């Protein structure tokens, strides 16, 4: 009896450091945001007061909120599947016995280690009309003067392309690790059975990579909602919010509008979206995953 109590105390003590950090930096801020979303913002002229669901009503009527939410969905749809397909392709390629394998792997991984702000500064000049790299190349084919970042029709595509370029190499590393964990016996067996390479990939390799895919999918989804550094440099959300994303809008509301309450309200929505995404993916994909 006495001994088991000690074991419990011991266990809790072991848990304590992680628990303190989690509560202080994850759970408390989340709950504080939820609480704040029911109050009006505080200033010396107008003290904070309880306003119930007013902030949520404001949000529902805020066209910019709906626009950034829609943008974010398109951004996720544009970046996530493409990054994953490219990551798998690159991983298969550099997993084979090709000359200069180390060099190619490093080349694919390089965009990942560059800071996003630096990358955005480089791409800002790539996309620049006429003087930019892309327009320079296109001008050889007689196509000129695209205002890539200055038109609402093209700006989101530009962000998506840059993000895929930045992220695919990172996901490749996970797929590479996954591929190397697959025993070579499978390939020998498949070859003996006369399976083609595509068949082998589709029936053996891809299913065995599912745990990696789940991990990458969740990360890519979450990233598509939390990576906004590039917006500060490239577009500041413009033109007319055509490239703004939810988290960037939260930043604007909190630090440019200084409206902590409305920022908290938007944060609650972001948290809810991310939670639903993560949980949903676990439940939907669980039955397709073969853990070895």
């Amino acid at each position: 009896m006495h001994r088991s109590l000690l074991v419990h105390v011991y266990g809790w003590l072991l848990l304590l450091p992680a628990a303190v950090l989690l509560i202080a930096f994850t759970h408390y801020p989340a709950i504080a945001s939820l609480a704040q979303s029911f109050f009006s913002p505080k200033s010396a002229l107008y003290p904070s007061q309880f306003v119930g669901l007013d902030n949520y009503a404001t949000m529902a009527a805020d066209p910019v909120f709906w626009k950034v939410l829609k943008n974010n969905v398109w951004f996720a749809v544009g970046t996530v599947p493409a990054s994953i397909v490219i990551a798998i392709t690159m991983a298969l390629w550099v997993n084979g016995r090709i000359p200069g394998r180390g060099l190619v792997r490093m080349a694919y991984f390089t965009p990942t280690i560059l800071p996003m702000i630096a990358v955005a500064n480089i791409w800002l000049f790539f996309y620049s009309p006429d003087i930019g790299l892309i327009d320079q190349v296109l001008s050889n084919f007689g196509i000129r003067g695209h205002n890539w970042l200055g038109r609402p029709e093209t700006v989101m595509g530009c962000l998506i392309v840059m993000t895929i370029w930045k992220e695919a190499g990172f996901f490749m590393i996970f797929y590479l690790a996954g591929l190397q964990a697959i025993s070579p016996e499978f390939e020998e067996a498949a070859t003996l059975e006369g399976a083609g390479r595509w068949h082998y990939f589709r029936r053996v390799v891809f299913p065995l990579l599912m745990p990696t895919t789940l991990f990458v999918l969740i990360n890519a989804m979450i990233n598509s909602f939390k990576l906004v550094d590039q917006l500060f440099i490239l577009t500041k959300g413009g033109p007319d919010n055509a490239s703004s994303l939810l988290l960037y809008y939260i930043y604007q509301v909190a630090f440019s509008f200084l409206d902590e309450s409305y920022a908290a309200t938007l944060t609650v929505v972001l948290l809810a979206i991310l939670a639903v995404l993560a949980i949903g993916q676990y439940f939907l994909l669980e039955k397709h995953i073969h853990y070895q």
Partner: protein
Amino acid sequence: MKHAVTRIISSMAAVLGLLFAAPAGAAGPIELNMYYPIAVGGPLTKLVDELVAGFEKENPGIKVNAIYAGNYDDARIKALAALKSGKPAQLSVLFSIDIYELIEQDAIVAFDDIVKTPEEKAWLKSFYPSLMANGTFKGKVYGIPFQRSTIVMYYNKDAFKEAGLDPNKPPSNWTELAEMGKKLVKHDAAGNVQRWGVMVPSTGYAYWMFQAFAMQNGQVLMNANGDKTYYDNPAVVQSLQYWYDLSHKYGVMPKGTIEWGTLRADFLDGKTAIMWHTTGNLTAVKDGAKFDFGVSMLPASKRRGSPTGGGNFYIFKKTTPEERVAAMKLIRYLTAPEQAAKWSIGTGYLATSPAAYETKTMKDYVAGFPYAIVARDQLPFSTAELSTFQTGRVRKLLDDAIQSVLTDKATPQAALKAAQDQADPLLRRYRSAK
């Protein structure tokens, strides 16, 4: 509950502060913390350090910690956060348009309440009046101009010659801008535009550029109390129509929005014959231009006009009387004619007082580089930068309206009416206050 936590933390901080501060002693020097932002290129932190070192040498009793705090947004966030925590700054350079936000947070004191002697009172009046507009609220001065800019027109004289125009006669009104712009546009054999007539940036600071158009058309965008905007005034709608027409009717400017950050490179690369940009870019253009360039005031419609921009000094409320006096001493030193001249030459910002342009340093510089004076000559036509209560929101409404027009999503009338209709309820409650 929240208050209890804050109290515990701040008392802990106070104890810690005592522990560390004790050796400095009770009779130690006054210590001032000052945040400042940098929004243009160049080794400006070094220049600030030099100026501060000069002050400390003259005033051994005052120690100044000048802390570089990123861009204007970062600096405001850091200063306000420091205010909420135990270790506030005594003074800071912050965006001149943050004044209403700082007043709403009850964070700053008016200089009128600190100055005592007639000499100090005279000092408050020694700056260019149009630079004081953004720092004054209900008759009291809260912000002293420091790093202040305005918009000027840069033009490529070689392109003017090539187009058969007089390189010493830049467009002086809207009609000329459109007419000369047409001549300056150059096509290649396939009919693609090689050089545009004019570019006005419309990302990042669209509202600021637009203020110039509106002012030239004879209309300001907000009142002096910061509680009313005039976005849908007919003169304002007309000026947005003109901006739109530059690309869609006259064909002298590319369609869509034009990036603030790359425009200088476009101009230096000859992709546009004329650009509107901040004076803060003057030194960089001077160093980078491989062609003969000119600088002039912006063209006029009914009158000339440009907004001012940039950063002001503020003194925070959470300060002792001694700290306020010391802070004002520092500000007076940094804005004195000689220092203001040095600062202006090193940055391209305006020297903030007429006396600074009378110093030998400045006169010598202007003699070798006459364009350094264009911004000053434009000051009499200048207006305050867009700034109201709820300024972040109210400004973004205008930014979005401008961009939606320039990208063909809305007409000037509809976009500005919608912006006005959304700004009005945000500002209504401030009209009855105090």
